[in-house]
């Protein structure tokens, strides 16, 4: 397998091309770190303006989709300590959260002094979602570049449950701990538009409910939510414009009680299903579902190429697939 000499994208990645120096077309298209830093400054300012407008509007200034992993934990810490927001942390328990991650969530929310809500969708339905997602083509080619089918279904449910909860509770901001490689900085501060949400929900829910049944509709928005258009929040993902360094983040969140789990794969610090989701994706599509995200981080200078390479192509702890398969009943 050929791998880009600058980032870590492989020749099996959809649509990729290489020049005579072995540099991939994604690196060739990259506008450079200075252009990115300019965007970061612009969006941090946009975020600060928004924070100023969002304070004291209701019981909470901000809701965070809290997985218990390092990135959402760090985002929560920054929002609380640096911006002094009144936060409701919301965890969607997909049935595969590592025991250590649960302990981390409890310690961190206690130490930071934030309210924490855990929503646990029924496991028989979630299991069906994961199994059907792993076997069927329900997502676009572009979607499959960025994440496994299992992760995409899971995060789809997380996003819509979080949005409907924010609307119901009149929370003006939703924060996500997307890493700087997961979503562009230009989308890091954005008003949720009801019309666009209606269209994207139809595109997500349609294929999913066909596979697992209408019971999954419970996790998505209803007409009652769309009728509350003035309550639609802003989405923010601050790690896109803040300084990001994995080692420093782990050290900082260690001070508020977070400990690195030893039962997850190299690309997750909370989910026991991730290793299986990655394995299925690699076998079906020929590339690692995290390679796009990690390559983005390597290209933009927030992760060393060697560290990124190890995350994607390095050896994974043994036994993770067995644990996930057993819980899925495979």
């Amino acid at each position: 397998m050929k791998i880009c000499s600058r980032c870590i994208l492989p020749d099996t990645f959809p649509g990729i091309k290489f020049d005579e120096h072995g540099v991939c077309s994604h690196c060739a298209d990259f506008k450079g770190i200075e252009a990115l830093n300019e965007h970061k400054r612009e969006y941090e300012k946009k975020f600060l303006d928004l924070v100023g407008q969002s304070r004291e509007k209701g019981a909470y200034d901000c809701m965070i989709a809290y997985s218990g992993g390092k990135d959402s934990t760090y985002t929560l810490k920054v929002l609380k300590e640096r911006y002094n927001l009144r936060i409701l942390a919301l965890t969607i328990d997909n049935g595969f959260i590592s025991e250590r991650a649960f302990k981390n969530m409890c310690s961190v929310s206690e130490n930071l002094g934030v309210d924490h809500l855990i929503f646990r969708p029924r496991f028989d339905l979630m299991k069906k979602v994961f199994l059907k997602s792993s076997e069927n083509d329900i997502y676009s080619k572009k979607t499959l570049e960025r994440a496994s089918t299992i992760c995409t279904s899971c995060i789809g449910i997380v996003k819509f449950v979080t949005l409907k909860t924010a609307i119901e509770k009149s929370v003006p901001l939703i924060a996500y701990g997307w890493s700087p490689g997961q979503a562009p900085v230009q989308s890091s501060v954005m008003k949720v538009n009801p019309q666009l949400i209606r269209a994207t929900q139809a595109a997500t829910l349609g294929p999913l409910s066909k596979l697992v049944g209408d019971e999954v509709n419970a996790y998505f928005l209803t007409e009652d939510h769309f009728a509350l258009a003035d309550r639609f929040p802003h989405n923010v993902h601050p790690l896109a414009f803040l300084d990001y360094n994995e080692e420093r983040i782990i050290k900082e969140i260690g001070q508020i009680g977070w400990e690195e789990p030893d039962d997850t794969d190299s690309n997750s610090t909370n989910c026991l299903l991730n290793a299986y989701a990655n394995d299925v994706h690699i076998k079906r599509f020929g590339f690692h579902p995290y390679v796009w995200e990690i390559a983005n981080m390597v290209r933009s200078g927030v992760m060393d190429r060697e560290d990124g390479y190890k995350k994607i192509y390095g050896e994974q702890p043994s036994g993770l697939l067995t644990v996930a398969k057993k819980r899925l009943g495979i």
Partner: protein
Amino acid sequence: MRDEVRDFIFKNFLFDDSGDSLNDSDSFLEKGIIDSTGMLELVAFLEEKYGIRIEDDELVPENLDSVERLVQFISRKKVPS
């Protein structure tokens, strides 16, 4: 501009040589070509390529959800009001 937009969609969402066909009026979302994150990437591309600023209330399917709609939207944005 139409060709540039089509090129971007084919290169980034259909991967050029995949043999997919796309009419200018086809909805990206309904055809499963672009998802919600893809929409945000599309916005980033339009802002950079055409030097425009897309406001929050302009992020609607009527402006973004087909080649035809994109071409009309960019044309409107590029004309100073």
